[in-house]
């Protein structure tokens, strides 16, 4: 009950201000479009770097929206109520991260194949791109959620958040991009996808507790 209520509340808040999501998606598109402009329109080269560019851009885009994840609740006192609520704070943390994933990870996975197609990825690679983003972005939301909770009320929290989260996101980035690369070279992508899934599940099993611990010390 608490989980569902919080999850729906966060979605409703985003629904009332859709601009916040649109900005993140626009950032993703603009950032990826800059690469062909910087590198040149050669299609072989673009197809070769597409996996890395799209994954790195997805990583940055999901970091971009994170600094408000807990900050609004922290400022208006809703976080104190969550701390007092009769259900586990871990579930509340999970609900917030799940809502963040629905409004960033999911749209990014829908949008990415359009850009991937423009980079010259073939159909099979595009399918794998969507799969890896669907499996991998929950881990990004959770890692970013931890960084957001740790930097609540800190000075320069935006830049700090990226510094904390990006090294921890490296495994997800590596296996997300390498799955697409493996498809392009004819290897199977299942191993990469399975490891990506394992990373996401491990984040799911451990990070809500870390996020809750961070929120508790922020609320003290």
């Amino acid at each position: 009950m608490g989980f569902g209520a919080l999850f729906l509340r966060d979605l409703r808040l985003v629904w009332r201000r859709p601009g916040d999501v649109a900005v993140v998606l626009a950032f993703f598109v603009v950032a990826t479009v800059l690469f062909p402009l910087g590198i040149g329109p050669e299609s072989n080269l673009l197809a070769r770097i597409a996996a890395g560019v799209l994954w790195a851009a997805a990583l940055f885009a999901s970091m971009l929206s994170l600094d408000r994840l807990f900050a609004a609740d922290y400022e208006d006192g809703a976080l104190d109520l969550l701390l007092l609520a009769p259900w586990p704070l871990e579930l509340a943390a999970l609900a917030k991260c799940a809502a963040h994933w629905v409004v960033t990870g999911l749209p990014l996975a829908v949008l990415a194949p359009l850009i991937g197609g423009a980079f010259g990825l073939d159909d099979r690679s595009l399918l794998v791109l969507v799969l890896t983003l669907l499996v991998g972005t929950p881990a990004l939301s959770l890692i970013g959620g931890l960084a957001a909770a740790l930097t609540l009320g800190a000075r320069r929290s935006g830049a700090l958040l990226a510094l904390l989260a990006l090294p921890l996101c490296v495994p997800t980035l590596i296996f997300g991009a390498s799955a697409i690369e493996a498809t392009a070279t004819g290897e199977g992508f299942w191993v990469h996808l399975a490891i990506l899934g394992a990373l996401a599940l491990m984040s799911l099993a451990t990070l809500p507790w870390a996020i809750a611990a961070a929120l508790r010390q922020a609320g003290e």
Partner: protein
Amino acid sequence: MADLHFLANPARFRRFSQRVLPALWLVTALALVIGLYWSLVIAPPDYQQGDTVRIMFLHVPSASLAMAGYLLLAALGASLLVWRHPLAALMARATAPVGATYAAVCLITGSLWGRPMWGTYWVWDARLTSFLLLFFLYLGHIALSRAYDDSERGDRAAAILAVVGAINVPIIKFSVDWWNTLHQPASIMRLDGPSIDPSLLWPLLWMMGALALLFVALVLMRTETEIDRRRLEIAENQD
């Protein structure tokens, strides 16, 4: 464990470290002088690498100690979160910059060693890359612990980060290894095999010990400073 709890009182710790530190500095200085003379003058040059092999005597120990330092940071973080040891927070604050410096020394000496050996200052080798990420984890810890006006909040946030980071270090290492083998299967950048000549191994182990002593001495000294600084902060707030 009982001793650890005994020293968890900052004032008691400070008395202890003030008694230990002068002797420790003396031993450290002696060990470093002997170790540097041994490794830079006495030890024979490598038959392939010549005198550049001497970089190893600084490079390898700083790498091991930087990794051990992160484990110490995680242990301190855990004991702050579990037992709320006031000293653990201060010691973590003291440890992180020392560990980051050791990591930086390792990266810098590694790149200076790489230039004559591999012909380039930097390659995206798995070990180099994962060490660079360890350095970033240190930087994140330092930045986070100092990002709050209320320093105790910074301590606790950084403690959580250190514990999560320590769990992630092996995963990062594994994934970077995988990434590297994907991109360049034959990696030539290794010390050849486990066999290292005793004439080089003994000074290496000695330097390892000397630099470990230096690490401990620096951490103790910086912890004392942190205790004093915290006292000043409290005194200031009381006015």
